[in-house]
């Protein structure tokens, strides 16, 4: 479960991406989306946990001010899973150029 602060951050990211302010890079070999800004890097990675049989998301936030890496985790058993999944999907489509 993401801490509240991070949940809010994810909601903001979601909003900004939907507005078109942010564009993410999708890596399908890694099943992750990455965002690079002047202040930070953020990676949201999806994995299927076979032992517990649920999907899980890892959010890795790299603060460029002091180059610190922060990791946050949630899985299908928590309510914020849907939020993370929505961000993942929106982020995937942010850099996608559709033919029509």
């Amino acid at each position, binding site marked *: 479960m993401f801490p509240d602060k991070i949940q809010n951050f994810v909601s903001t990211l979601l909003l900004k991406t939907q507005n078109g302010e942010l564009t993410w890079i999708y890596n399908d070999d890694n099943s992750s989306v990455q965002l690079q800004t002047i202040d930070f890097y953020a990676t949201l990675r*999806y994995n299927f946990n076979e032992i517990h049989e649920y999907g899980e998301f890892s959010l890795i936030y790299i603060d460029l001010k002091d180059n610190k890496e922060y990791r946050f985790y949630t899985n299908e058993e928590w309510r914020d899973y849907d939020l993370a999944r929505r961000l993942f999907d929106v982020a995937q489509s942010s850099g996608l150029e559709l033919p029509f």
Partner: protein
Amino acid sequence: MQPRENKIRIIYIIISIIVIIFSYHYENKLIENQSIFNVVSYIGIVATIIGLLITICEVIHNVSISKSIQHEAKQLIDQIRNIDCASLVSESVALLDEANNYISNEQYQLSLRNIQFFSRNYTRMNAIGIKSNNIDNTMTQLELEIQKATHTKPSSPLPKPKRTKIQSDIINLKNELLTANKKRGENVSR
């Protein structure tokens, strides 16, 4: 038993009985006179030698017939095995290809079933000489991975790297199988 065999047996039994009756009937006449008896003995000796010759030659003849039957039987059995082997291998290749397609469509349960069919086929193939350590090693892990994948759902799908790994494992199985089959073919023809 074929009627022909019985016919010959009946004939020689009848002839033997006739000879016995004949020799019993004429016993006194033939034994009394020394010179006649000598002739009769001589005929007996010649007949025995001929009988021995016939027996020996027939036995040798039978041995060579048995050998050629054995050789033909072995060839026939090998042929049957080769046909059985070819059908097993082609069926297995089809199973593996299908399993791969199922993974692409995220139908893990169906893919697992195909892999299990293949596993049974592989056991049969071991009996006719197709075996590979690589296949043995890959099989357990692969079956486990697909089994785990059956628990995924649309909201929590199997991520691409895991899917790709499973698919490349299946393709490796196929290649290993074809190599092992070729090796068997070379062993048999040697």
